[in-house]
């Protein structure tokens, strides 16, 4: 039951949508509605206007560009991402994160654009978006811009997006060489959000040493983050169990972890290290392929 009134429109171009957003003070975009509508039902969000993106078909696409960039439209649902062949083979961590969102019914409606715009600190997809160094392409009244994942997430439910900006697509740079990735998650038993979720990508050199690793962590802190110390520690190693464990132990360094009924701050910190290790192990195995 939603008790506060609002207007609704579903424009068919992104420009119209941007314009509609500018027209009222508390206007909000609605995509899959799986974060926004629960909040509206609880009276915790009370927009006066909803601008539905669903008629803007181009935002739904998942495609590979000539240079290998994989472009995921903001309206791509978690389900379509998890099932997409290109993503499963090239961006396994993203496919696994999308497949780990909520439950099948949530995945059928919820979108990656919505997840990134909403920026719930316990959302799954921010982790691989960070780990793959993706670009978030936003379109607003001032035009189009690409925001680097590393600069996008500011705090819980806060992003670099301007109020009249719409996420149009998420651009994942081509994964080169021997690269593997993985996402692993410790889910909240009831809400199913991430208590801790870790995405890792690992690129190996010809001799098997780790050329580059990126670790995106969600659920643990006020905002998703890159585990920079752990990444540094694993780079240049052989990617063996010992090196991975040593690196993973640094995954929560310098981070203030959240505390709630399910996991205290200490426990979350511990989970970050365990899940970082598991993600790195799996990503490395895949890179070794």
């Amino acid at each position, binding site marked *: *039951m*939603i*008790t506060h009134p609002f207007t609704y429109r579903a424009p068919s171009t992104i420009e119209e949508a941007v314009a509609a957003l500018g027209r009222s003070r508390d206007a909000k975009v609605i995509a899959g509605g799986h974060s926004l509508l629960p909040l509206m039902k609880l*009276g915790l969000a009370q927009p006066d206007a909803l601008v539905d993106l669903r008629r803007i078909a181009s935002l739904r696409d998942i495609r590979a560009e000539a240079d290998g960039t994989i472009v995921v439209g903001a309206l791509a649902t978690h389900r379509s991402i998890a099932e997409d062949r290109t993503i499963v083979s090239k961006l396994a961590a993203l496919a696994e994160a999308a497949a780990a969102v909520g439950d099948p019914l949530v995945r059928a409606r919820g979108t990656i654009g919505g997840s990134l715009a909403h920026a719930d600190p316990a959302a799954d997809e921010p982790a691989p978006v960070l780990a793959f160094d993706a670009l978030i392409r936003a379109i607003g009244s001032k035009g189009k811009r690409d925001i680097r994942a590393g600069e996008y997430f500011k705090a819980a439910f806060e992003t670099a997006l301007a109020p009249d900006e719409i996420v149009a697509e998420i651009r994942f740079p081509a994964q080169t060489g021997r690269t593997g990735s993985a996402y692993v998650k*410790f889910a909240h*038993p*009831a*809400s199913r959000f991430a208590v801790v979720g870790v995405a890792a990508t690992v690129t190996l050199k010809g001799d098997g040493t780790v050329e580059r690793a990126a670790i995106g962590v969600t659920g643990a802190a006020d905002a998703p983050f890159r585990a920079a110390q752990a990444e540094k520690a694993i780079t240049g190693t052989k990617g063996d169990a010992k090196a991975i464990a040593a690196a993973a132990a640094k995954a929560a360094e310098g981070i203030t972890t959240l505390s709630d*009924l*399910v*996991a*205290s701050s200490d*426990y979350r910190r*511990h*989970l970050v290290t*365990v899940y970082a290790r598991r993600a790195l192990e799996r990503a490395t195995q895949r890179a070794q392929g």
Partner: protein
Amino acid sequence: MTAATTTTYIGARVPRKEDPRLITGDGLFTDDVTLPGMVYVSLVRSPHAHARIRRIDTTAATEEPGVVAVLTGKELEATGALPVFITVPSMNGSKHMPITTDKARYAGDAVAAVVAESRDAAKRAADAVTVDYEPLPVVVDATKALEPGAPIVHEEMKSNLVFTYPVKGGDVDKAFRDADVKVKLRLVNQRLIPNAMEPRAAVAKFEAGELTLWSTTQIPHFVQLIVALNLGLSQNKVRVIAPEVGGGFGSKLQVYAEELIVGHLAKTLGRPVKWTEERREGYLATIHGRDHVSDVELAAKRDGTILGLRVRTVANMGAYLQAFAPGIPTILHVFVVPGAYRIPAFDYEMRGAYTNTTPVDAYRGAGRPESAYVIERAIDRLADEIGMDPAEVRRRNFIPADAFPFNTISGLTYDSGDYAPALERALAMADYKGFEKRRAEAKARGNYRGIGISSYVEICGLAPSKANSALGVGWGGYESARIRVHPTGAVQVFTGTSPHGQSHETSWAQIAADALGITPNDIEVRHGDTFESPGMGVGTFGSRSLAVGGIEVHKAAEKVREKVIQIGAHLLEASPDDMVVEGGKVFVKGVPDKAKNFGDISMAAYLANNLPEGMEPGLEATVYYDPPNFTFPFGTHIAEVEIDGETGAVELVNYSACDDCGRQINPMIVEGQLHGGITQGIGQALYEAAIYDDNGQLLSGSMMEYHVPTAENVPAFKLDHTMTLTTTNPLGVKGIGEAGTIGSTPAVANAVIDALSPLGIKHLDMPFTPEKVWRAIETAGGEGRR
């Protein structure tokens, strides 16, 4: 005389008669009832757990569009108080008004009601009611509530003590003096939220002096009685209908404020009124379950023989006593604590306490899961202490099969039982012998694996009426049934039980079909409507329906059968002693082609021109059945878990159970009851907890925090059964509705503790959440971790 001998349908996996409407969306649930001109109620609930109500300002709410009325407790006093049906000795009863007037005693206590033209309007207006509260000190913990100086929930009482309930037998002091070993445990049986999938709802209409109330209830007859008494209506002018009810588990075993409120409003406004609970509202306003803290001491000999059991428990009753609440931690708990064992000395003192929390009443198992938890955890502690296999400790202490009927030390008489075979079969199913190998394999993976046993006994049936009365139960333990055979031979069974998932339409039809020599498809079972009922029905709870309600259907069917035989014999000019009732026909034994159809007999009964001398016309029977004793089902459940050595996450990997509920009417339904019950018990062990902060705020206040198990949280279940008939009823049936919940929780708990026992961990409290287990492992030094 000629008792039914065939059991064509009893014991068969007859498909459910309920299903066709429920799989097509045709079932009518209370919230599906919409009537012309209907208005909607929304309740204003206190956000404070304890606060004096200084002033309620309804002006703004009244001005909201669509509002019909805004009413405070004073204006709703005509609803009368909510009933409590059980009085135990020394009980301090609380006055419980549907809408409180003086103070709010828990977060969720209703303080005003809004009526409006739509649900949205009612909710908006409820938000606009402003209440001036004076917050008072809060007490959440039951033990603290009994300490001097604790905030008093009901000021007229001076203390929060609801009752002290002692039960003793044998010489416990001596038992402890003579003991080689004594084990001590503090057990927390945490508070749970029942979570029937259908939220509560109530719809009332008042027409031509008659009140009709649709309600999500397990006990329509009690609701009818109280609504009639409280609202000043003649009972024959109050019709309560429990249509499809979407699960209850005790949470709908109440007369709730909202039922009285919609009834009163329908009567005074002259318009149909609906109230539907929202889930988060229900977490506050629908009863909770469990919430015991027990200090348990067990005295034993080194060979495992139990000598005595001493228990001191405080039960958190919440802010008010609900309908059956006083009986749950007492009658349904204390007596069965000795369980399946011969325990020569027993000393139990149960105290109940008021706190500023949601009232606690019956939740599936209601007192008995707490009993099984006490004794089954204590036995495992003993086994650990003396270094004996927990299965062996159980074997050594079981009441032997030849000792039944058995008088327990707590004063019960167990009807029948044979506990060892159920244990042995469960052990075999669970490959108990091969377990240590699996433990070692898990250890190699860095994990901890454990196996846990629980051999429970439970009480079903809450009868006979005289015993109920002696125990303080303010109502009889009987049930009622009527069977009406129409002239065409169409058969209707009316039952006083009120199912909400238990498949009575099917089981009752099976029972009647065998007695009447027809098929379940020939029989319609009707329930849940006080205007159609055979008489005063008691309802469906406490696994009583079959052992009481099913038997009364059997008895009514036997009565009808007797008359069918008499008429058949008369028409066939044969002796009643030679008649066979079978396959929809009545015939002389050995001459099946010279037969009268069932329909011929019923027609003859109503034509009434050729009946045996002195026989009344018609073909129907009404029976009230008051069983001579409770029944005591039992069984053994075995759980196997594997704990992630790094995170503490517990996975339930195997589950086996061998249960004995006497004769099974429909094994398919029995298994279904077990699956569901086991899952709820697993929920308590691993996932569920209602958690309050010190201010009495429910932190696990929605399904986003409170974890109701999903399909991924439970394994496939391996079930087996033994069949020890009860001697207390003619079908030999016991009850199975709660057994799963009672047996499973201690099995899982014992498995988790067994897994952690190599680390020296002796006990942890439920639920075994990952962090709790991880901390225990860390504290224990994590020996054996990688």
